């Protein structure tokens, strides 16, 4: 029983760290990229449509690692393989 509680406790902390650090990285990345985009949009407004398309592409790429982390964390939350190894 104690083994199970131990594994579950550590899994919960791990999920928190995965999602938290991923969100931190993704938010900082989007913030920096967005600020550069706004700067260059103010400098050269005629390039805004092209830059906007590239910006959305980059936003998807930046979010990718974070969402992969969320997927892994959710897998640990609902179908914990470490807990299954105990059975």
């Amino acid at each position, binding site marked *: 029983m104690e083994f199970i509680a131990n594994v579950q406790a550590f899994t919960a902390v791990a999920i928190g760290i995965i999602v938290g650090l991923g969100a931190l990285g993704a938010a900082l990345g989007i913030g920096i990229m967005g600020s550069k985009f706004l700067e260059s949009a103010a400098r050269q407004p005629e390039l805004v449509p092209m830059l906007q398309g590239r910006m959305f592409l980059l936003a998807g790429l930046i979010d990718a690692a974070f969402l992969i982390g969320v997927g892994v964390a959710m897998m640990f939350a609902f179908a914990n393989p470490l*807990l299954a190894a105990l*059975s």
Partner: protein
Amino acid sequence: MSVETSNAESAGGLTEYIVHHLSHNTVAGGTFHVDSWVIALAVGLLGCLLLWAQARKATAGVPSKGQAFVELVVEFVDSQVKDTFHGDRRFIAPLALTIFVWVVFMNAIDLLPLDLPGWIIGQVAGHEVAEHTYLRMVPTADANTTFGMSFVVFFLIIFYSIKAKGGWGFTKELFTAPFHAEGAAMKVVLALPNLFLNLVEYLSKPVSLAMRLFGNMYAGELVFMLIAGLFASWVTFVPGVLLNAGWAIFHILIILLQAFIFMVLTVVYLAMAHEHH
């Protein structure tokens, strides 16, 4: 999976609901996900049918709305391919269009209500059957689907590399690529680090393509399931509806964006494979 599913189901409530909705409909001893395969096939055929129907009655005169929309999509994809791939794009552009339309359709299933298939089965076959039927609606939220697609892209990358550089040139470049050396001794020394870097570069492409799409769709589905948990009580019902609407609207953007990214990255990787040094 036996201990924590039985624990989770006996825990009841939201966890059991989520675990039920996360389980695949499997055959062949739980290894083959029939639901992903069937839905992916059905949705792909639907996409083909829609595009073919518009192409069949396409006119050079004033286009109908459907034809104009299909032309919009095709020109969008073609301009993306034209910007990136400098070669014969008679194969690449239809490939990109297939990827884009198919992934958009597969992702869009995520916008259907989560309980809809279960409700339909409950109406048709009764409550008990619905309890024991599992169905994961979104094929791209299944890692098998996304990895299948990215493996095909991976083989295409290798095929185009070999076509551009020749079989022997391709193998040679694996060993001499980023670090070049003059003398024979340095070449041998640098061969192994070159190979390692090239392997990482080649293997990271399909893995990142697949995991990016899978992670986005899986997390999206999971958030829908978690928000569905808010509908359990009357107090949280209205916030639940608002949150669901907000997340669904955001998810429309994610659906289109992830399909676009998969397509653009495929074209970029194939363009990189096609160029020779």
